[in-house]
């Protein structure tokens, strides 16, 4: 069992997380997402909106991390890898809002000379990013490597990774799944965003993946599920429950059911907003549903 006391590291709160505060952050993050993709008429709002609660929970309530003094090795910190890199808008917003860099920099997303590339990268030195992602299926292997390094360094912090459900159609994911279980990589908590959508339609139409829980269990993982990954309290409870399963010889998987486009009514429940930006009118309509809580960038 990993202990959670480390006074020098930031955590959203050391007491019970204030759900109302976190919901306010979620609303602001969603505003950031739609404004970012609108400004450059490109990017991926659907999955970003769907994973807003997960990122907010992780960076503001669950992980022990050090946004003000980012270092690549992350020794003594919990570290996170985004494997489905196309949902960079939510990653960038939460990194900025939790203090890795100035929120004003969100205005440079996908523009020339920006550190906020279309897909996340270490190449321009953006604090908070530890590997490039975008080409799918690679992040779990990297997370396993980082988890092994933590074990070699006697560092008992955890490694988190996030994957899309469409992403796990990539074969490398299953190479990684086998390795992590066989080698007892039990300081890793991976999450799959099960929104049931991918570019060409629903995952059940494009390539049905069957019983995900049974698959991951058969691969030797401890599997937890959330019914509603867009309820922040449930996400936090699941992540904290997942932490109690670490250190017990198995990697931990969270199957997190979310709704793509959550929080903006006309973007919800469809794959159509996977990689499309709203126009001016749609942006206004979206922002009307998302109160400004922390100040727009």
């Amino acid at each position: 069992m990993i202990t959670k006391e480390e006074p020098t590291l930031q955590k959203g709160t050391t007491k019970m997380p204030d759900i109302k505060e976190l919901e306010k952050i979620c609303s602001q993050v969603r505003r950031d997402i739609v404004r970012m993709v609108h400004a450059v008429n490109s990017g991926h709002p659907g999955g970003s909106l769907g994973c807003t609660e997960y990122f907010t929970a992780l960076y503001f309530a669950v992980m022990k991390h050090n946004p003000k003094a980012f270092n690549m090795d992350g020794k003594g910190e919990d570290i996170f890898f985004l494997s489905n890199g196309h949902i960079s808008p939510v990653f960038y917003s939460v990194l900025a809002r939790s203090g890795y860099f100035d929120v004003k920099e969100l205005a440079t997303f996908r523009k020339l000379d920006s550190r906020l590339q279309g897909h996340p990268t270490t190449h321009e030195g953006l604090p908070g990013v530890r590997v490039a992602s975008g080409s799918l299926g690679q992040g779990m292997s990297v997370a396993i490597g980082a988890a092994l390094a933590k074990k070699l360094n006697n560092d008992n912090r955890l490694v988190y990774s996030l994957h899309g459900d469409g992403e796990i159609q990539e074969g490398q994911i299953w190479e990684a799944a086998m390795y992590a279980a066989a080698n007892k990589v039990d300081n890793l908590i991976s999450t799959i965003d099960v929104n049931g959508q991918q570019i060409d339609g629903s995952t059940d139409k494009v390539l049905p993946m069957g019983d995900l829980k049974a698959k991951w269990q058969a691969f030797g993982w401890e599997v937890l599920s959330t019914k509603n990954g867009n309820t922040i309290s449930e996400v936090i409870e699941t992540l904290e429950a997942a932490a109690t399963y670490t250190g017990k010889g198995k990697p931990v998987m969270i199957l997190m059911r979310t709704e793509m486009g959550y929080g903006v009514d006309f973007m919800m429940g469809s794959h159509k907003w996977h990689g499309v930006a709203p126009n001016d009118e749609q942006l206004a309509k979206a922002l009307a549903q998302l109160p400004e809580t922390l100040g727009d960038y």
Partner: protein
Amino acid sequence: MQQHPYTEKKDTRSGFGAGLSELGRSNPDVVGLCADLTGSLKMDAFQKEHPERFFQVGIAEANMMGIAAGLTIGGKIPFTGTFANFSTGRVYDQIRQSIAYSGKNVKICASHAGLTLGEDGATHQILEDIGLMKMLPGMVVINPCDFNQTKAATIAVAKHKGPVYLRFGRPAVPNFTPADQKFEIGKAVMMNEGKDISIFATGHLVWKAIEACEALEKEGISAEIINIHTIKPLDHQAVIASVKKTGCVVTAEEHQENGGLGDSIAQLLARELPSPLEMVAVKDSFGESGTPDQLMKKYGLDSPDIVKAAKKALSRKSK
């Protein structure tokens, strides 16, 4: 001609194994990963001495590259081991995104490169790996010529911060470079000073070039032999200085003509010192089953092929 005596033939992959083993003892951050080819890669000594720092990943090269990238986060220096084919073509996207673009300090160590893999045939004889790897921004590409040099290169790349592709082979070949050599990444090694033609060779072809040099000498041709163990970054200064003196060039490598050492040297000379140039390399073809010697002859990579190319380049110079 400068003599390069040797007392034994040894495989370059054993040089890698010996180097890794030495690194294991001297550098606690060095870790090894292998995809079910520990014996072939000669990583067994490292595995035995440092089981906690050795990761057997099974037949899953993509995962191996990703795990290696992750191990650097936390300060480890991963050395991955598998055949050259599975170290490059099979995992190009993983190397490109998780290692090269991400600037990770991973050493991709590749055995059984080229035709000299032999009887297993073309599925395993990669002849495109140098090209694939040298195209990646920031990737260092090294192809040492014998056991001693491969051992020295293995030790040297641990000190270089950033991704490296280290290529070596299967068969026993003359071990003719000094055991105590200092390996400098990106620094060509003069094997024989000459005045009529420059022969730039890499990997197993360095010895073939030395044999060719002896044959050329008997015909009164003075060949300069330069060992280009580092294809990227290329030692521009050494290439230009030599060609300024000789005025014509042969390149020699166990690789496709497209994308190999010859290609890099031709590019440099076309820009800075256009000169007659002939390439000893595989001409846009796959290999096949056979013994290493048979294959090197059939595909035109033997010392007589270097002699022939040298004469052709010389004749073009005199025109």
